[in-house]
């Protein structure tokens, strides 16, 4: 469904993506792992058209993302940003219901509120937080609000950028289960970025390892442990020595 071919992206002299190829099949959960600063977030921002790659081709259902009709294209996506990216000028429930209150998906305010509260419940937040402002919540709570916003309009394709970073182990478990549920129940196609190997094992159908601007290894999660790839093994087992330098 989503295909990246030979994608390059540099910032000044810094080459972040150096010919990245990746295919995400429909209805599957792809997990991208890799050290911090390797370009995982940039990679999904390229798919969404938030960042324009220097070269290469990115297609969704065979349509080039740069040429797609923007509104219709973006309406299919949900995105959880690494930092939450909540709108701090509006209360939590309006953040979650943002998409349901304007544009083509607009519906009555009361209904939008109901949906927002329901999505908040799914990410483990009580309706009490609905009228609060983002600055009044902890980082982990903000992350979960961002997650609720990403799934609010039941999109077909959802990107989760480090959904469990900053959460306690129990809440991480809840979020991992939730993402798995979204894939299984809603049939959504998801791409999740994470460092958390528990997340990988719970969420993933397929895993891709990003390093040095390319996908070093990709395959079904079941084959991850026996991949024989030195980069992947080092990452999975969190070893300091191996082909991935700890100085980056």
């Amino acid at each position, binding site marked *: 469904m989503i295909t990246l071919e030979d994608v390059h992206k540099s910032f000044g002299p810094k080459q972040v993506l150096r010919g990245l190829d990746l295919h995400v099949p429909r209805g599957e959960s792809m997990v991208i792992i890799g050290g911090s600063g390797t370009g995982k977030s940039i990679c999904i*921002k390229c798919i*969404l*058209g*938030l960042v324009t790659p220097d070269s290469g081709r990115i297609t969704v259902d065979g349509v080039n993302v740069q040429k797609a009709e*923007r*509104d219709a294209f*973006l*309406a299919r*996506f*949900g*995105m959880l*940003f*690494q*930092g939450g*990216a*909540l*709108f*701090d000028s509006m209360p939590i429930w309006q953040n979650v219901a*943002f*998409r349901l209150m*304007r*544009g*083509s998906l607009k519906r009555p305010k009361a209904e939008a509120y109901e949906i927002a509260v329901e999505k908040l419940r799914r990410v483990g937040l009580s309706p009490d937080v609905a009228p609060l402002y983002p600055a009044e919540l902890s980082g982990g709570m903000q992350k979960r609000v961002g997650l609720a*916003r990403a799934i609010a309009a039941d999109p077909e394709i959802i990107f989760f950028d480090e959904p469990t970073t900053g959460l306690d182990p129990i809440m991480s478990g809840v979020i991992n289960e939730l993402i798995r549920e979204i894939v299984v129940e809603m049939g959504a196609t998801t791409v999740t970025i994470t460092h958390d190997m528990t997340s990988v094992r719970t969420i993933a159908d397929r895993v891709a390892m990003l390093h040095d601007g390319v996908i070093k290894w990709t395959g079904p999660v079941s084959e991850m442990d026996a991949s024989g790839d030195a980069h992947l093994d080092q990452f999975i087992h969190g070893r300091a020595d191996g082909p991935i330098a700890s100085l980056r």
Partner: protein
Amino acid sequence: MSARLISKPLAAIGRSVLQLLAAIGRVAIFAASVISHFFRPPFYLKELLQSILNIGYFSLPVVGLTALFTGGALALQIYAGGARFSAEAVVPQIVAIGMVRELGPVLVGLMIAARVTSSIAAEIATMKVTEQIDALVTLSTNPMKYLAVPRVLAALITVPLLVGIGDIIGIMGGFIVATQSLGFNAATYLHNTANFLEPLDIISSLVKGAVFGGIAATMGCYYGMNSGRGAQGVGRATKGAVEAAAVLILAANFLLTGVFFSV
């Protein structure tokens, strides 16, 4: 050797001129794009009203105080200066002209640059840095329409009104000083003021207000949306926006005064 000595600084000057031209081009394209979005839906009425409140209504105290003190000081100066050649009587006329043609629009414009440009730039830059602008895009909302258009439109609507109010309060400041401490007769003062002002004075004042408001809000949005990363990026964006707005307002004032009043 001597050719190099000459060509090096020339090249440096040329480079800066080109950079300046490129920057002007980018701002012009940005402004044109904002204007083009005025007429294309969707329109965000709630954001527009909020901006009108923020830019117009909440600027009233600072605009009022600035104008009041300036009008008062102007009356004192004109009286003292006029006394040197027995022309004290021109206080009402010169205060009126000075406030309406120049000081009203310029001071309100600069106050708006300080108060509104800075807050727009800091707010939008923070949104950019914390990925809120990216989030808007992924939620199918055009940041130009949602953030820039309401602010620029609100400034175009409210700043002329603020200038009008500033003009009136400035004249009142002069009136208070002249009648309370310089011994002018109240009725004569008002009569002279009203008789002296021409419609063109007032029109030029309001037009300047609209142009300065447009400049102030556009610079805030432009610098905010092009902010660099991190807290430092937000600081730079805010500083750049206020500087650019203030300089452009003064330059535009010079041009507009030329257009309206040079015969």
